[in-house]
Each structure stands twice: as C-alpha cells, then as structure tokens.
C-alpha cells in the first residue's frame, strides 16, 4: 500500500516483504480451508479409504455412494427442504418488517418513539441462547411444537436488524420523501418504490446475515422439534453423530450437503456480507 522511500540497497529488498506477506497469507488460507476441502473430498471416498492410514487427500475411486446412502437411509431431502423453507421465509419476512420499521424510526416523529427505539436497541444485548427456555415454554403452551411456525416465529424482528435498517435509511435525504408526499404518494408507496430500492445493498447485507444465522441455528430447532420430518439440517447432523458414530464417509457427505447452499449464497452476496460486518461488527 505505502511505497517505501528508502534509498540504496533497501530498494532491492522492497519486493521481498510483499512476496513474504503473500506466502504467509497463502499458507494461512490453505490451513484454514483445508478441513473444508478435506470434508468435500472425503464425501466421495468409499468407506475403506476413509479409515486408511496414511490418508489420501484425493479419493482414488470417487463415488456417490455416500450421498446415495444418506438420501435413502434418512429423509435427508426433507431436512434440506425444511432448512431452505425456514431460512428463506424468515429472511424475507425479517427484511420486510425491519426495513419498514427502520423507515419509520428514521423519518417519522410519533408518540413513544424514543422509548420504543431504546427498548429495541436494548434487545440487541440479549443473547438468543438465554431466551430459549422461556420461548420453548411459550411455544409449548401454544401447542406449536414441531411446526414451521415455531421454527421461525421468535426470529422475525431483531433489534439488530431494525438498528441496521434505521442507520441506512437515515442517510437517505428527506427531500426525496417530501417531494413524493407533495406528489401525493402514500407512505407505504414511498417505502416500496423509493426507500426499498435505495437501500438495496443494506438489504442484501441483512438478508445474507440472517440467512447464514438461520441456516446454522441449532439450539432452538433442537428443543422445539423432535419429529424427524420437521428437523432442520443442523439438528439432523447432531442426531447423526450418535446414530452413525464412526461412519465418517456418511458424516462428511452430510456435512457437505449442509455447507454447499451457504457457500453458494455467500459467493453470490460476498461483498454485501463482508461490508455488513465491517459496518457493524455487532452481530455474532
């Protein structure tokens, strides 16, 4: 980044630190992605190759048997469907609800605004894990266990999302809205036709955040679902370890299936995701 203004011999040495940084970063990258690569490659290995020592990196006779066994022994298709449905539906609803709430908090004055915004900000300090027990008892009392509604209901509005949306919408000039009001547009139309298109990147950040979070969510679906057909992928994976303890060929295939959709979603929305964290650094 910064050109050194050193004279003499140092000019020759200038290129070396750059190359060294690349070597170190590259080594770090390889070490970091190795377990994932190992998982993907091993998913295509037959059982005897899994237990072989020294291990092979690449499968010598790649096979799809593990995936075939996975999808025939268990309703794995159903788990994938459940995860996709729960994740997509909750993400769409959350993005719409919190963006309109963010719009109102950013651009309107109303009775109780300060109080309500303070309460919503306060909820950002509460970790989801600690509310699992009371939420579980509420859901149980409402007889909603083992339903899709139970899987998504507590996560449709989060303080973090409202905060993020309000921050972005605050930067939109109010004149735009005033002009639309003078033209006779209703506020919902303004939200839909002016605000939403303008906060596209922020929406994408929030969407991918929430997608990853819901896709990987574990504690809540574990307690609220106990029938096989309602399980999401992470829950199925956890049951899996006790069922097929050392069938690593199967567990690697299952873990791969759990990872691929999220990697695809990440690759599509990568920029937004990284920017989202950089902007907030808040959500874990």
């Amino acid at each position, binding site marked *: 980044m*910064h050109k050194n*203004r050193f004279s003499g011999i140092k000019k020759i040495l200038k290129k070396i630190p750059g190359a060294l*940084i*690349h070597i170190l*970063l*590259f080594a*770090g*990258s390889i070490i*970091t*992605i190795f*377990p994932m690569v190992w*998982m993907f490659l091993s998913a295509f290995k037959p059982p005897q190759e899994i*237990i072989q020592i020294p291990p092979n990196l690449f499968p010598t006779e790649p096979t799809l048997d593990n995936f075939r066994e996975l999808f025939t022994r268990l309703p794995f298709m159903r788990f994938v469907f459940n995860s996709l449905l729960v994740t997509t539906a909750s993400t769409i609803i959350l993005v719409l609800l919190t963006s309109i709430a963010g719009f109102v*908090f950013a651009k*309107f*004055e*109303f009775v109780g605004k300060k109080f*309500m915004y303070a309460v*919503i900000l306060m909820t*950002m*300090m*509460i*970790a989801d*894990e*600690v509310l*699992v027990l*009371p*939420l579980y*008892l*509420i859901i149980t009392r409402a007889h909603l266990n083992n339903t899709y509604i139970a899987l998504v*209901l*507590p996560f449709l*509005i989060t*303080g973090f999302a409202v905060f993020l949306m309000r921050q972005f919408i605050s930067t939109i000039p*109010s*004149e735009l809205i*005033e002009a639309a009001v003078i033209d006779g547009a*209703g506020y919902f139309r303004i939200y839909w036709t002016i605000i939403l298109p303008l906060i596209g990147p922020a929406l994408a950040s929030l969407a991918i955040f929430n997608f*990853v979070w819901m*896709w*990987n969510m*574990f504690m809540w679906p574990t307690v609220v679902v106990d029938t096989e057909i309602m399980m999401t992928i*992470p829950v199925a*994976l*956890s049951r*899996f370890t006790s069922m097929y*303890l050392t069938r*690593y060929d199967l567990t690697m295939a299952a873990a791969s299936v759990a*990872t691929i959709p*999220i*990697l695809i979603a990440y690759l599509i929305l*990568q920029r937004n*995701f*990284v920017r989202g*964290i*950089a902007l*907030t*650094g*808040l959500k*874990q």
Partner: protein
Amino acid sequence: MAIISLKRKRSARTSTFPYLVIYPAFLYVIIFIIFPMLYLLFLSLSSTDQFSQISIFKGFDNYKFLFKDKLFWKSFRQTLYFAGVRLVAIIPLSLLVALGINQVKRFRGFYTLAFFSPVITSSAAVALIWMWIYDPAIGLANYVLSLFDIPRQSFLLDTDLALLSIAVISIWKDVGWYMIIFLAGLQGIPEVYYEAAKIDGASILSRFRNITLPLLGPTTLLVMVVATIAALREFTSIFIMTRSTISGEPGYPANSTLTLTVYMFKNAFLYNKYGIGASIAFILLIGIGLMALIQFRLFKVEWEY
C-alpha cells in the same frame, strides 16, 4: 430533518402510518423478547413441576443452590478458560491476517474467502469434520502429530485436552470474522498519518508501533468484547462433540467440557429443571449484557470516528 417539521405540520395528525407500522412491531418485540426475559427471571426465582408445569415462587433458592453447586463452578471456570484461550490466540491471529490483507493488492478476494469460509459454515458441520480429525485411531490430527514424532493424543476423550481441542476449532472458525473487523479499523486510519511519518523518515516498524497500534486500540477492544461474548455463547460445537456415547449427555469426558451454556441446556432440557436452567441463563444474560454494553460504547466511538 426537514421531514420532521413537515410531519408535524401536515401529517402528524393525519397520518396513521408510523403507528400502524411501529405499534405491531413493538408488540412483537414485547411478546417475543421482553416478556420471555421477564418470564426467565420468574422461572429462575421459582421451582417448576415438570409434569404439572406449575411454578411455585421460591425466591433465590435456585441461585443459592448454584452458589454451592460444584458443577456450576466447574462450568464457570471452564467457560472462563475457554474464553481466555480463545482470546489470547484469536486477537493476534486475526490482527496479523488483517494487517497482511491490508498490505496486499492482489488475491484479496481469495484470502478473504479462505479465512471467511469457516465462519459461515454451520457449527454442526464443523463439529462433524473435527470429530473425525480428532478421532484417536484414524483421525488426521494424530497422523499429522506422528509426522513430527509427537505421541498419539486422544483429544476429545482426554479430560485435560478436550476443551482445549474445541477451543482450537473455535479459534480456527472465527479468525476470519474478527479479521474483517480489524480490516475495517485499519482502513479507518487516515492515510495522511503515514504520509507524514514517512516524510519524517519513520521505519515500517515504528510506523506500526506509533500509528497503527494506538489507533487500532478501540477496534482491538471491540474485537475482545465481541470474542468474549461469542465464547460465552458457544454451544453447538461443544454440545455435539462432547456427548457421551452411553448417556448421550454433553460434557464428556467427566464434565471436563461443561460450560455455562451447556450446563444451562442440560438442566433445562435434559433434566427438566427449569428453575436451575433459568437461573444459569439469567446469570449468562447479565454477563453477556454487560459485555454488550461495553461493545455498544465502543461501537459508538467507532461510528463517530
């Protein structure tokens, strides 16, 4: 802020739009966040019969019980140990990676993707991968150790090593996350400082020590707080990797991997001791809340910076 005056003049009386949006949204927050929080407090102060589901108010009995409960203190110590090990490794690692990526122009996307891929992978999948890597007989970890003539380890089955082994996974998984926060911090340092230092003839090292490090102070503190919160909340990997093959309960071997979150879950959902589980959850809520409060403060500093 012109819109506000406009609202006051024209629509504060006529428009019901903000109320139609915010009141239901706020009601939702009350029902699904505020009420459960109060309910949690109530549960922690009572004893609930698991069959009749009737709760009887017991005051601080559950907290008194936990205060004398050896397993609670063990979980407490182990949670601190887990958070500490993670912190000590993850701060320098993620800072180094961020410094490196900030220096290079090429392959940035690749490096970011590489360090970020474990962050977005589900903890459940990560647990499955590493259970195999840590397998004492056919796992990769022992194979790698054998290449360096280091004796075999039993990792997750060893009371001294199990929690450390999981901390290593957790470090590996989250470096990319904190790297991004550091990267944002680095990019927030005005270039003019470096220019000025270069004119004064400061070396790379002295520029790093006198400009980068002090200006990264708030970011480092932010990462420390975020990393501590993450450690306190860690559940999925520990739960999946430490279940006893016989009882199916997490914390194996010999409760050496029990952390507060896992102990909370165990009491609430495996033993149906709602009161005890709720008390641990409430203690966690306070602890994490205090950390989050610091995070908020730091974050405001960052925001205005």
